[in-house]
């Protein structure tokens, strides 16, 4: 049947959808469908095959691979998953290398650890969060009874540009009034007796049995893979993992992640100090693309990975230490 379909299209050209991005890795490849937000892990030979057949006539490909069963299977797979299509038009434009609808935020993603210091400077910090244009904010709290604090924080954020807030806290009784807040999206309760996930309005509660000790340590897993057109565009031009993404510790130090030894500034600094000093230093790091970092440069997830690893300088470029090994396609 498939062969009949192909033969009926023999005078047409094979095209790869511009929103389907074949990415070659070391051990295996991946095809990102950035419109449907899906990723297919495929053998590297399929990526080579796509490169080889694209923009060619169906008849010429059929002729060349007439006796090759695997080529037929590959073509069938690409067609069924709607990665390729046939058309009489000879060529279609590819996605522009720089097609970002750039966000106006200076910092878009922020995780902040609540402490006495942070509480004492809350007005200044909230004002900075708002001025920096933070859209996604996560607040980590260690207080055993913090419902009042959460209400207060949500109230302070009322006129901010934050659209998505989440909190992590020790296991405790949740005030149901929180579920009416439109900004609140998730609550992470660590040290919970039982692991479960529950949805209340638009708030998702994650009950985690482990402590918060390793909660913010960067770790690659399926949740840190984000396949979509904006993420892809950012990844092509910047380091997707750390672009406009910061971690603020209990002393207000602005870093990339919890284990970052460098402080790029303080969240209690003036807005001018942050935009001129801190952002300048941060952007020097987030400008280092995955293509220039080992082993990200040979990883099939390099355009969709959001783990906040910080690249460090090596003799011949930059490197990160990741729990995913792209040489073997295994998690360590």
């Amino acid at each position: 049947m498939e062969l009949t379909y192909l033969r009926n299209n023999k005078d047409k050209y094979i095209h790869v959808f511009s929103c389907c991005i074949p990415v070659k890795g070391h051990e295996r490849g991946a095809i990102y469908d950035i419109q449907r937000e899906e990723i297919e892990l495929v053998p590297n030979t399929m990526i080579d095959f796509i490169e080889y057949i694209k923009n060619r006539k169906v008849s010429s490909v059929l002729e060349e691979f007439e006796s090759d069963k695997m080529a037929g299977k590959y073509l069938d797979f690409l067609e069924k998953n709607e990665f390729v299509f046939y058309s009489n038009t000879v060529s279609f434009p590819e996605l522009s290398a720089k097609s970002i609808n750039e966000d106006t935020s200076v910092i878009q993603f922020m995780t902040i650890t609540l402490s006495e210091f942070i509480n004492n400077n809350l007005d200044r910090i909230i004002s900075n969060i708002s001025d920096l244009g933070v859209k996604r904010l996560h607040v980590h709290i260690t207080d055993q009874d913090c419902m009042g604090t959460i209400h207060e924080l949500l109230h302070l954020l009322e006129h901010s540009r934050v659209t998505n807030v989440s909190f992590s806290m020790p296991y405790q009784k949740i005030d149901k009034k929180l579920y009416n807040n439109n900004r609140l999206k998730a609550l992470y309760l660590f040290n919970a007796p039982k692991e479960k996930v529950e949805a209340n309005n638009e708030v998702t509660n994650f009950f985690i049995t482990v402590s918060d000790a390793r909660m913010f340590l960067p770790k690659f897993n399926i949740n840190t893979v984000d396949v979509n057109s904006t993420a892809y565009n950012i990844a092509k031009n910047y380091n997707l993992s750390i672009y406009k993404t910061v971690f603020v510790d209990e002393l207000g130090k602005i870093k990339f992640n919890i284990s970052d030894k460098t402080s790029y500034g303080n969240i209690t600094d003036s807005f001018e100090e942050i935009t001129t000093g801190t952002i300048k230093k941060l952007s020097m790091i987030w400008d280092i693309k995955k293509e220039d970092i080992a082993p990200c440069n040979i990883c099939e997830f390099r355009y969709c990975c959001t783990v906040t690893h910080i690249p460090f300088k090596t003799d011949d470029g930059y490197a990160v230490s990741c729990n995913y090994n792209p040489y073997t396609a295994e998690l360590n």
Partner: protein
Amino acid sequence: MSQKNEYMKKTLLKEMGYEKKKELLPVIFSHTTPMDVKKIKRDRPFRMVDTSIHQSEIYCLRIYKDGINISTE
């Protein structure tokens, strides 16, 4: 609606005659519906729009990554 379609289909088939239809279909439609469509469909088709999402979170303004990296294991 489905009843109407069913009726139209039946009428059309009657007009064409079943044998004739079998003969005609591959020629007319082979380029558009040559395969079993159910088989081609992916498990997860286009992402459905969740109506409970706020206006501010429509596609163009949506956050493209979580940016928090919480490890729940």
